[in-house]
């Protein structure tokens, strides 16, 4: 199972500094193809920074990051190659407000993948159906609800046919009644075998899809385990405290 080409993401002693502040300290992590990781931890613990380093939204300042056999360096060519393989979904959706939903889904295909217009539209409609809002194709983002916008954002990332999907608190900006429609799409994606890293506090989601749940604090990976053990018997005191706090109500 653990053949070398089965490793999709490899972090070796990765550090990230913002001036004096050390956001990541010696983080090492290996993610296999098809694996689903849920990353949780208090705010400021470095979990967003960690996944943002994986597609180089942030540059790591020490250590090595290897994505599907390609190391992340300063070379723009490599960065763009990696970004084509790694989809990202943001907390604030970040749909292009001046483009229709369809255009949001086709623009990068056209520019980056050089897909012909007709094919790009077919791909876009395929993924819009998958997130269950094909009827919104000709609308503008502002006309959609938050949940719908986030589903479009997921579809937009999928249009690039990524090997890996990163989710940066995808449901944190949503009204409560819209969270499940987004999580449903993510569960569906997980069932399909996508390699996923999700920064989220949706513990129900973690239980049902995660292969491993990881807890971060102070820029370090403190604890990891399969969801059952992680939630039932956290070994670390900080993990236990964090879980008590988010699961209290």
């Amino acid at each position, binding site marked *: 199972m653990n053949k070398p080409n089965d490793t999709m993401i490899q972090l070796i002693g990765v550090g990230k500094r913002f001036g004096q502040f050390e956001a990541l300290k010696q983080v090492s992590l290996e993610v296999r193809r098809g694996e689903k990781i849920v990353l949780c931890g208090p705010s400021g613990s470095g979990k967003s920074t960690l996944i943002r380093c994986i597609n180089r939204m942030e540059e790591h300042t020490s250590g090595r990051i290897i994505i599907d056999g390609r190391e992340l360096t300063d070379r723009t060519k490599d960065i763009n190659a990696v970004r*084509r393989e790694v989809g*990202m979904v*943001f907390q604030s959706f*970040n749909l*292009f*407000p*001046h483009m229709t939903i369809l255009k949001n889904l086709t623009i990068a295909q056209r520019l980056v993948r050089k897909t012909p217009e007709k094919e790009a539209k077919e791909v876009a409609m395929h993924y819009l159906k998958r997130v269950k809002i094909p009827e919104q194709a000709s609308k503008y983002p502002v006309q959609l609800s938050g949940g719908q916008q986030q589903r479009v954002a997921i579809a937009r*990332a999928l249009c690039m046919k990524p090997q890996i999907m990163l989710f940066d608190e995808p449901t944190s900006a949503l009204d409560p009644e819209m969270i499940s429609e987004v999580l449903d799409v993510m569960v569906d994606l997980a069932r399909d075998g996508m390699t996923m890293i999700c920064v989220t506090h949706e513990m129900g989601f973690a239980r049902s899809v995660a292969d491993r749940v990881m807890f971060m604090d102070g820029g370090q990976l403190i604890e990891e385990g399969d969801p059952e053990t992680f939630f039932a018997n956290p070994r670390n005191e900080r993990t236990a405290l964090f879980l008590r706090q988010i699961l209290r109500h």
Partner: protein
Amino acid sequence: MNIGIVFDAIPRMLSGIVMTFQLLLLSLAIGTMIAVLLLLMRISGRWWLSWPAQFYTYVFRGTPILVQIFIVYYGLPQFEWIRESIFWPILRDPFGCAILALSLNTGAYLSEIFRGGVLAVERGLLEAGAALGMSATHRFIYITTPLAIRIALPAYGNEVISLMKSTALASTITLVDMTGIGRTIVAETFAPYQVFLSLAIVYVAITWIIQRSVKRLEVYLGRSTAR
């Protein structure tokens, strides 16, 4: 006070409107190009491009436009190499001088307006573009530019109005625009109050037209973000 002078003066001054619009539209077009160039220099991230652009903006915003017009019109012909250069046919002509001075001046202001627009584009959108693998150039063309234009448009409209009024200064270097004609009428009638009041009315009317046009353009461009 003879109100009849107003009714005589307005039609005569309107014959200068072509000159006013020529000055406005030409220097706006050239000024916009200068502004885009300055903007690209400033956001290039290279000091040897950014510094000259900043210096340019500083100088042209820091001096009165009237002084700039005089420097171009009276000052530049002092140099022999300018008189021998290919630009002499333009600089020999007061119209060319006015266009040059107005363009250089408005270019400095417009570049700052454009820069404000570019900086105001939400960072997350550019990140989303980057995460999709779009290159920096693609992000600038397809995300930054259209959004920055929408953001900068109201301020751009203000600058157009400001430039329109600055064209009146061209009358100081012999050009016969609306203000130039107004001054001629004053010399004939000795009725500065009525004539300049008429002139003011004409400028207000033009300002109103520009304002309305920019507003319509704003609504049109904002149609995707309005509910």
